[in-house]
C-alpha cells in the first residue's frame, strides 16, 4: 500500500512491473479509512472490523466493487 504523486505516476509504476493498477484512492478517502480503522485502536474495546463492517466503511467512502469486498473470491 503505497503513495503516488498522481494517477499517471501510478500507471507508470504498474506498467514497469506488468501489473494492472487497482483503484486509486484520494487522500480524503484514505483519511476516512484511517480514521475509521484505527480511531479506536488504543481503546480496550478496539477490534478489527468484520467483513460486513469493512464493506460499510468502504462503501461509505465510495469504495465499491469486488476489489473492496473482503470475501470476494474472483481474484
Amino acid at each position: 500500500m503505497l503513495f503516488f504523486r498522481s494517477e499517471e505516476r501510478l500507471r507508470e509504476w504498474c506498467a514497469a512491473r506488468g501489473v494492472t493498477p487497482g483503484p486509486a484512492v484520494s487522500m480524503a478517502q484514505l483519511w476516512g479509512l484511517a480514521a475509521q480503522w484505527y480511531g479506536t485502536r488504543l481503546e480496550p474495546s478496539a477490534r478489527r472490523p468484520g467483513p460486513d463492517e469493512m464493506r460499510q466503511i468502504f462503501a461509505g467512502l465510495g469504495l465499491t466493487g469486488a476489489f473492496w469486498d473482503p470475501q470476494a473470491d474472483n481474484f
Partner: protein
Amino acid sequence: MDFLTSVKLAIYRHFAKTGAAPAPHDIASALGSTPNEIQEAYGQLRANRVLLLERDGVTIRMAPPFSGVPTQHRVAVDGVKYFANCAWDALGIPAALHKPGTVYSRCEQTMEPLELIVSEDGPGPSTWIFHSLVPAAKWWHDLVFT
C-alpha cells in the same frame, strides 16, 4: 478486563509512547506478569490478527498501524517518531493517537518526497493518491507484501 486485552493495550500504549515495539519483558513488567505468559499472549494475538510477529515468535513486526521495523513511511507526532507499515497506516497513526502529526513518505514511482501535515481532522487538500495492488480479500494472505 481480560488478560489478552490487557496485553494488547500495553503493547499499543508502549508503541504510542515510544514509537518502538515492546519486548515481552517490557509488557511483563507493565502488567506484573512473566515473559513466558506474555509470549503466549503474543501468539494468541497473532492468531486473532492483532499482531504480526517475526519468525522468533516474540518480536513484533506489526501492531497496525505501528511498525516494529523501519519502513519508508515515517510519522512524527508530539515529538515521537514512528514507522508505519504502509501508506494507509501512516495516516492511521495520527488517527489512532487523535493528535496532529506529519507523515513523511514518497511517491513510489519517482521517489519524490511526501511531507503531509495531518490535523486531528485529517490532511488538507492534496493531489497525492493511495494505491493498493492487493484486493481486500487477500490483504492478510501476505501482510508484509500488502
